[in-house]
């Protein structure tokens, strides 16, 4: 009897460990996925910034802005599962309406920027970049920078 009890407890522990592991793995996937999207936004914003500072040629400007707009449109979906972790503060989900609105605004602003760049190039789009990429106010509320 005693032997079976230990066996049963052992099985429960193993199953619990496996379930916990698979849940963690899923959660890590969710985090990794949104990190890929946010890092893309970072990289493309940095490339645009280099062009505006004349540290890189302007040939790719319109394309970078397009990539930014496309990527911004993918971000909200990546944050929909409520999975804490990475650099996202819990406020992302506790203030979802505000967070989602800000991402929608970013999507709209970058799409507008992409259209402007397509029509008028760097000269036309440059004055709009700072407003479209006002990431700081959102990051202050929703990003917990890793040190």
């Amino acid at each position, binding site marked *: 009897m005693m032997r079976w009890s230990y066996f049963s407890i052992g099985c429960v522990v193993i199953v619990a460990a496996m379930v916990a592991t698979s849940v963690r793995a899923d959660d890590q996937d969710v985090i990794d996925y949104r990190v890929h999207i946010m890092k893309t936004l970072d*990289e493309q914003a940095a490339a645009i910034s280099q062009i505006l500072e004349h*540290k*890189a*040629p302007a040939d790719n400007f319109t*394309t970078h802005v397009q990539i930014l707009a*496309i990527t911004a449109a993918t971000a909200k979906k990546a944050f929909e599962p409520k999975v804490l972790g990475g650099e996202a503060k819990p406020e992302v989900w506790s203030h979802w309406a505000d967070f989602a609105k800000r991402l929608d605004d970013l999507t709209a602003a970058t799409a507008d920027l992409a259209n402007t760049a397509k029509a008028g190039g760097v000269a036309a789009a440059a004055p709009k970049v700072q407003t479209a990429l006002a990431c700081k106010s959102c990051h202050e509320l929703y990003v917990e920078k890793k040190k």
Partner: protein
Amino acid sequence: MKRKIKIISPIALAAIFLPAVVSADDQDIVEYREHIMKTLDEQSAAVGMILSTVVPGDNMAAHLQAIALTAQTALKSFEPKVLGGEARPEVWNNWADFSKRMNDFAKNTALVAAQAKGKRSDDPELGEAVVDALSCKSCHDAYRKEKK
């Protein structure tokens, strides 16, 4: 003697500052192409996660479009012959081959991005086409020196 020092000083100063200025420009060039290559990494990883069905596939077409557009920007960023970062000198020693591979990559990713429009992310034909278009390894083996 004092006069001599006055003459030497600006030259010495120039010698000190000139390499810094040049390397700052070079660093910008290296950083710019790294922004592009890292974008390709991040977006390819996102596509890989969708193909592995560990995340939903809603954004598949958008990721592929982002990859195709980024691929178009890559060649331009490697045009200045500036060694550094993860690029091997072979990039510029074998420029004809490197640029051909980059152009092929841009063409293939554009085709697969077009193919993905209106298709489900779990479409097997699309999956195969994506894997073919994103076969970065052979080019990385030849031209990338990965930092450890």
